[in-house]
């Protein structure tokens, strides 16, 4: 347990540790693959450990799926599609999704704790954001299952078939929900590959599918690393691939599917600009900047990782930001006071540290807070760069960590020019008191999700997805159904 202290000037006021207990459930020592409704070991018998990034202790062993396991999973999904799921009425499909939503709510505490242990995110976020939103996604999509005709007027709507879905480690269960709920609601069956560093909640979700009585093979979960994902994408039995992750891998997937009829949607990286005008409510905007870049350790594809601040308030904003950042508590993810948890993995931690070096080598100035971090585990102090140029790698590339690049601007058009000058287009933010200016900026930013006077808000009814190299397709809302239906 870490002693978390506010390190602001001269204050001895600290927060006593407030750890969430983890004794109300027991993880299994090992988890199999979830194939055709049953947990089975990998054909090769291989396993790998999933660890807690906050203390580097092993949480459980999970099966390492190989090519043959992938094949079994796809066949199980195909069988379930042909024999059961495609024939089932939308109303009945919806009822299964309602059941799943309810069980997620019932097991919310357990799921939140496991999410924080396996991925390193603060319990406050997994408890208040990830798990409730995951349940909400199933609840929302459950209701669509028997109403799809209304979502696509003038068309007859059918499922696509078997979907292979690959999800990242930043919102493990929430990404399960984003992918699986619309796929099942529209009548498809699924083979899901969770990230190798965060497989546990997807495996608990597999248990939930059993508890819900979901017909065997409708949902299958194969754990493993990138090679498992590649084997899934390569499998000829898929009708649809959905991937959330890095732009590089997304491009590789599009290439590997080039000669096939497999449908594809990609939700990839981002480098969102958070634009602060001089007439914004500055204190509120500073909270928005904090939420934009430090939410979930900055492991957010839509993170507000670039701050564009109007020159006249730059100094004020940067000073207030520094002061606010010094109050951020970095430490034990299970502590309810923690603001910033552990970096998800050693590899990611090294990647972020590399960017911290690159930024300085490029001539930018680094600021990091002075907070203490635990000895064990992977941690990065809240950081920002000033004196950055548009061409710097820390401005153009996604860092996926608690690192903000700060630039200034004079005019609205300059802000838009800078905001749009990256290959990405996932999200953006604008802070101003003027309504007309909000709409000018939200129209001008080339990105799929724009937050005005807020940041990092999500909802199952709200479509999410990118422009340009942030990928294509939407998740959530009526538009999020489109990638999972065949229209005729």
């Amino acid at each position, binding site marked *: 347990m870490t002693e978390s202290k506010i390190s602001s000037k001269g204050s001895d006021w600290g927060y006593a540790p407030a750890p969430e207990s983890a004794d109300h459930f027991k993880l299994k020592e090992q988890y199999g693959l979830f194939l055709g409704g049953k947990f089975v070991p990998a054909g090769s018998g291989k396993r790998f450990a999933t660890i807690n990034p906050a203390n580097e202790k092993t949480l459980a062993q999970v099966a390492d799926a190989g090519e043959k396991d992938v094949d079994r999973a796809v066949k199980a999904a195909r069988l379930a599609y042909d024999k059961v799921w495609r024939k089932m009425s939308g109303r009945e499909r919806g009822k299964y999704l309602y059941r799943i939503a309810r069980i997620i709510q019932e097991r919310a505490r357990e799921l939140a704790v496991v999410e924080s242990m396996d991925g390193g995110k603060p319990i406050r976020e997994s408890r208040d954001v990830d798990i409730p939103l995951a349940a909400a996604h199933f609840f929302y999509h459950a209701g669509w299952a028997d109403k799809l005709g209304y979502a696509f007027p003038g068309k007859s709507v059918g499922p696509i078939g078997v979907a292979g879905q690959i999800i990242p480690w930043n919102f493990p269960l929430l990404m399960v929900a984003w992918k699986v709920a619309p796929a099942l609601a529209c009548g498809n069956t699924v083979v899901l590959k969770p990230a190798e560093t965060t497989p546990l909640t997807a495996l608990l979700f597999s248990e939930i599918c059993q508890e819900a009585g979901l017909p065997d093979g409708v949902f299958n979960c194969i754990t493993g690393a990138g090679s498992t994902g590649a084997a899934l994408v390569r499998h000829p039995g898929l009708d649809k691939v959905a991937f959330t992750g890095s*732009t590089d891998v997304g*491009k590789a997937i599009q290439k590997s*599917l080039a000669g096939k009829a497999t449908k594809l949607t990609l939700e990839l990286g981002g480098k969102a600009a958070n634009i602060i005008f001089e007439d914004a409510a500055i204190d509120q905007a500073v909270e928005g900047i904090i939420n934009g870049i430090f939410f979930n350790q900055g492991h957010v594809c839509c993170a507000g990782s670039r701050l564009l601040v109007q020159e006249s308030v730059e100094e004020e904003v940067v000073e207030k930001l520094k002061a606010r950042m010094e109050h951020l508590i970095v430490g034990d993810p299970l502590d309810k006071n923690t603001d910033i948890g552990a970096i998800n993995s050693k590899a990611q931690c090294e990647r972020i540290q590399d960017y911290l070096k690159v930024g300085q080598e490029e001539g930018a100035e680094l600021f990091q807070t002075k907070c203490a971090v635990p000895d064990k585990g992977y941690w990065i102090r809240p950081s920002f760069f000033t004196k950055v140029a548009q061409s710097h790698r820390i401005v153009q590339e996604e860092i996926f960590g608690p690192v903000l690049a700060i630039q200034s601007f004079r005019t609205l058009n300059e802000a838009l020019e800078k905001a749009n000058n990256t290959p990405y287009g996932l999200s953006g933010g604008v802070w101003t008191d003027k309504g007309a200016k909000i709409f000018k900026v939200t129209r001008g930013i080339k990105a*799929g999700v724009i937050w*005005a006077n807020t940041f990092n808000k999500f909802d199952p*009814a709200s*479509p999410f997805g990118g422009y340009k190299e942030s990928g294509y397709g939407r998740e959530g809302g009526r538009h999020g159904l489109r990638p999972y239906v065949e229209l005729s």
Partner: protein
Amino acid sequence: MSKNGLNGKSGRLDVRKTYKMLIGGAFVRSESGRALDVEAPGGKWLGHVCRASRKDFRNAVVAARKAAAGWASTTAYLKGQILYRAAEMMEGRSSSLCEVLQSVGHSSAAAKSEVSQSIDLLVYYAGWADKYLQIFGSVNPVSSPYFNFSVTEPMGVVAYVAGEKRPLLDLVSGIAPIVVSGNSVITLSTGRSAVAAMELGEVLATSDIPHGVINLLCGLREELVGQMSSHMDVNALVVQGGDEKEHAASREACALNLKRYFLKSQGSNCDEDPYRIMDTVEIKTTWHPVGG
């Protein structure tokens, strides 16, 4: 056939037409100076059309990009009127459009039918200009105090490779759903259909469509599709016709900048379809707080 041939009856030598491409509102030949022969189905020589180079395509992208922002911000009502105006211009030149189609092998009836279908299709999509957003946009009931809505926005610059079966209609049915949402387009017409495309260029140039919004190239498919799919400043590629090998190569090249790629189905039963507009738009969702 009188237009480009000798007309013996009048004893006057016809003034033949030079078919030029339309780039940025200007009628141009290929920068490469190359030309292709066009022959009627029977083998009769009809004339030359340009053989666009990859550089011509890149020039067209520059023109299209320059026009894109202005066209995207043109009001929906005005976009609708401008497309309708283009239909008016087509109607006025329907006899020469028919002539061109006949010159490349259509019967008189088939030519007439394709021209009127093309005009009607343009009117159909003109009518969608200020309506599709009402069908495909949404206000989203989020469970927090925010006003949340999703609108469509044009992608930007779209490249379109037209099929050859219906020289005029395949072109119009590709262009209309792309530009009605505010994209600019660069089209490629190949084979005999090139003459119909160039004829259409003359119609469009005298309508109110801003320069650079619609750019018409003609040339060889195998020479240009690679450049169209790999160009880093093109947002989407819509393709009609072509073989599986070409589609695979294009889809792979599109991954370079995650260009959106669509294979357009052929045939009159899918020409009128507002979901085609949705292929080349993005969905943008905006969150705005509700509070005092």
